[in-house]
């Protein structure tokens, strides 16, 4: 994906989270499962899930 394409996805996620309102967490969980299935590589998917888990506490400090 080009930087512009990544940005398209980024925007879709932001808009989707807002549209989901109080169900944004459920929305993101569904997105994650769907995308993981598209990758078709469970090890890669699990590694990416772990990667997403890093630095979650850093936001407040930043």
């Amino acid at each position, binding site marked *: 994906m080009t930087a512009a394409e990544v940005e398209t996805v980024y925007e879709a996620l932001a808009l989707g989270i807002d549209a989901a309102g109080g169900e944004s967490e*459920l929305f993101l969980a*569904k997105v994650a*499962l*769907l995308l993981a*299935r598209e990758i078709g590589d469970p090890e890669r998917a699990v590694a990416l899930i772990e990667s997403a888990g890093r630095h979650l506490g850093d936001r407040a400090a930043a």
Partner: protein
Amino acid sequence: MRPQGRAPTESLYFTYPHFDAPEGAARERLAADTRVAIVGAGPVGMVAALTLAREGVASVLLDNKATFNDGSRAICVSRSSFAILESLGAVAPFLDKALGWTMGRSFFRGTQILEFEMSDPASEKYRPMYNLQQQYIEQYLWDAVAREPLIETRWQSEVTGITDHPDAVELTVTDPQATYAFRADWVLACDGARSPIRRMKGLRLKGENYEGRYVIADIRSGHDYPTIRRALFDPACRPGGTVLVHKQPDDIWRIDYQLADDEDEAEALQEANVRASVAAVLADLGETGPWDLEWWSVYSANTLLLDEYRHGRTFFVGDSAHIVPIFGVRGLNNGLADGQNIGWKLGHVLTGRAGEDLLDSYSPERRGATLDVFANASKSARFMTPPTRGWTLMRDAALSLALDHPFAGGLANPRQMTPFTYAESPAVLPDDPAFTGGAGVGSALPDARVDGGFLSDRLGAGYTLICFDERLAEGVRSLPDAPDVVCLAPDSEAATVLAAGPQAAYLVRPDRHVAARWTTASAEAVRDALARVTFQSLPDNAAAGTVEA
């Protein structure tokens, strides 16, 4: 529990019998030695006694109650259990009364998101699952026990002591008239989840208690819906919880509903609260007709088992050996398989058709089956009653996705009971690696249609060889102590199901699990295999075979 004003066992549709304690002449032999004593005449104890009787072995069956267990309890009977009932000559009333089913439907917040079909090929004689109240299960087993001269049943007879001797076990029994003792060569402790024998022997179940308690309530209602298991996730009547709905014979409906973490169990079990909860479920199902409350209870999801099912001359069988979660309906089915497993093994040993070492295969085989149940049931439990926010969120994501993406529905598969494969057991041989497909060593034999009937109808009561070559069949039939032989056409459905070429053969155990198989079989190989899996040495003149110790 039953509604106010009704006694325990005062059912809307079932008349519980009353059994007297031994009286008159029957008391004269109470203290006599016996070969096998079975403690507990629940479904598992009765299956064990019937299996032993089929082997030609007499037993004494003791139960502390004067009637059957109260309430419908375990209502789902699997195909493999029907095969057991058939082998005991007891299946006919079950087939008449039980409701067979193959389908389940899952609903998420009121919308149907998934429909699953259990595998039900035309080659199978029985449906994958049947619904039948446990008191009928016990009634029909009891009818078979009562007909069986080799079983002496003693109702109202509580085992209150157990003492091991070098070559026997002494049981102390208290009945309404007396306390007496007798000796048994072998004891089967089929005395249920609270097993007094387990306690008296100082043994403990080990494992985990899961989150999630369910109230199970039976109602009588004219509710019109086919026999399809319904699972309601996060329904309006129970936000955040799960509800299961099953149809039973006699217009009885089972409604299982999950209690929330903060719900008090004693309070939830009060009649008024049960009525209100059931009414809410019925409203969700669109049922507006009248209904009667029959019986209710509470159930929690545990995975607990004994480290070892055999202790000297005592075997733990059924719920005394393990407690499993309700999801996937394995509690009773797993127990019936235990009862059959120890029954035929002990029967073969006591009638000189197997060496005593065969008995040591009971615990690994049946513990293995229970651990397999645990692995499946913990996954089901996580889905049915997610223990944390993370599990809940992912469960809901899967359910919500399933509406548009069938793959996600697969996560909601209830993983119903399938028989365990005893691949590692000492009582089977290593598999023949040349097979591709068919039924592996240790697995339950699949059925196949044969001449208007089924392969399972042809199997003998002991070991059976299934082959496809008349010369091999003749060779095996002429062996000393030959197994039963079923010889089928090489182009039969059985050959296809078993992935068997014309020279192939399967040696099947009395419990219809595969003991050995060969892509190219010989009478000598069959003879050696039979000797090994029954822990018997070959006769001296059988020099050709090699038998490892």
